[in-house]
């Protein structure tokens, strides 16, 4: 099955490992992701924080390109891009809003846009538990994971269509299919502090610290994430977070695609594991020790 693919800007920088593991896992599962050639930034939080029409215009250009390329479905790994693209498509249904946004574009946007969904939902729609199980080369048995979705994936509930907005379970379903033991992690949708790590470090450090502290208390081997910004806050900023909550952590924070890739027997390099600040070696050792299914 072929999908149009919108990587988002961080895929080309800080979350190159998310991109790499997404492509690798989708390859194994038979999802072909074709990157839109001249996609632009969706504007992320700064655009919608400054102006709704500006944010919608940046997204509309991408939706328009996808529509003109004849895409039926657009997949993106990043929850922030997903949220912005979905919000824009929704707001553009109002004629007066669309007219104001069209005036910012070179050409009026296409009448109908393709549906936008997350890579996670795309994978789940493409293959069920059995579809995933047949690709497993190294069962994740014995691995205890905390699934952390962040705030954007499941909210607003109606728009994002991601199951229970307070207690989503899709990531758990995918990783359980790979044999991992998923913890019942109560902070799974509580904000990590988003992009405030730069202008207001104390906010992000405290919120991320709380998430990591609970995962550590619950004896998680790793936190599984789906958002480039959450990953950066919990991994790259982990020492700042630890200091804020007066603790010490050595908690690997992996993209769910990296974990699925390990179960599929892909090499750590093919999944970009060397990009993680907190090494995933403890995880790899545990997998080796468990033996898995070869």
């Amino acid at each position, binding site marked *: 099955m072929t999908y149009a693919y919108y990587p988002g800007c961080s895929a080309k920088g800080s979350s190159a490992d998310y991109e790499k593991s997404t492509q690798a896992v989708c390859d194994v599962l038979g999802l072909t992701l074709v990157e839109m*050639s001249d996609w632009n930034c969706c504007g992320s939080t700064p655009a919608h924080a400054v102006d709704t029409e500006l944010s919608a215009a940046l997204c509309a250009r991408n939706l328009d390109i996808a529509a003109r390329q004849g895409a039926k479905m657009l997949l993106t790994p990043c929850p922030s891009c997903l949220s912005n693209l979905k919000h824009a498509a929704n707001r553009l249904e109002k004629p007066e809003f669309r007219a104001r946004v069209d005036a910012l574009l070179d050409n009026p946007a296409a009448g109908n846009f393709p549906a936008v969904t997350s890579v996670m939902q795309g994978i789940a729609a493409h293959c069920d538990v059995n579809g995933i199980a047949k690709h497993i080369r190294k069962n994740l048995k014995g691995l205890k994971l905390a699934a952390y979705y962040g705030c954007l994936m499941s909210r607003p509930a109606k728009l994002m269509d991601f199951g229970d907005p307070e207690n989503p379970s899709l990531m758990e379903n995918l990783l359980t299919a790979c044999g991992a033991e998923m913890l019942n992690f109560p902070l799974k949708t509580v904000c990590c502090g988003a992009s405030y790590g730069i202008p207001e470090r104390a906010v992000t450090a405290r919120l991320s610290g709380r998430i990591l502290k609970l995962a550590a208390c619950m004896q998680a081997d790793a936190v599984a994430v789906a958002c480039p910004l959450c990953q950066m806050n919990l991994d790259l900023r982990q020492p700042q977070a630890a200091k804020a909550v007066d603790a010490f952590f050595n908690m690997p924070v992996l993209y769910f695609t990296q974990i699925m890739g390990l179960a599929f027997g892909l090499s750590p390099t093919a999944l970009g594991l060397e990009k993680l600040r907190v090494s995933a070696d403890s995880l790899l050792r545990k997998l080796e020790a468990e033996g898995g299914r070869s």
Partner: protein
Amino acid sequence: MNDANNLSRMRDAAFTKDVEAQSGQKMSDCYQCGNCTAGCPAGFVYDRQVNQIMRAVQLGLKDEALGSRSVWMCLSCSTCSLRCPNDIDVAAVMETLRHMARRGNRVTAPKVENFWLSFLDTVRAFGRAYEIGTMALYMLRSLRVFTDLDLVPVALKKKKLGFRPHVVPHGGAAAVARIMRRYKERAVHEGVRP
């Protein structure tokens, strides 16, 4: 002066209507249950809690609402909207207040705005966000040269930061720059701060 007299003098009914029109939310639906405040992860850095901001808008206390630091510290996580028993999109109200505060040049958390503008500058230049560029511009704007310096060595070692910006090919970067130019021109034409 009597507080009640003072309060009625400060009330601006047009402000309440403005917020309702721009956010699409009916302010009188809020009955102050406090669920939004209870769930807000950023409440610990707010000068006024979310329900207090909602009350201020209901009462038409424009300065109280637009001058608050809270509208800038809101993380847009939408927990408030999700848990509102009356289905008010509280996060949309907070965002509307931020837009109004910006346009009226009442920025109470300049560091936050500086960060957003730095990010958008890189999008204007390349069509895509450029992480190192955003940081450099932010440091210049805010004069906070040591921001996140502790992260630089490890970010470089792990190749977390791309040195070269990713420019949208096929003239896409110029198309994005035109979108942003038109946005700015329209804001100037409409007499608001872009």
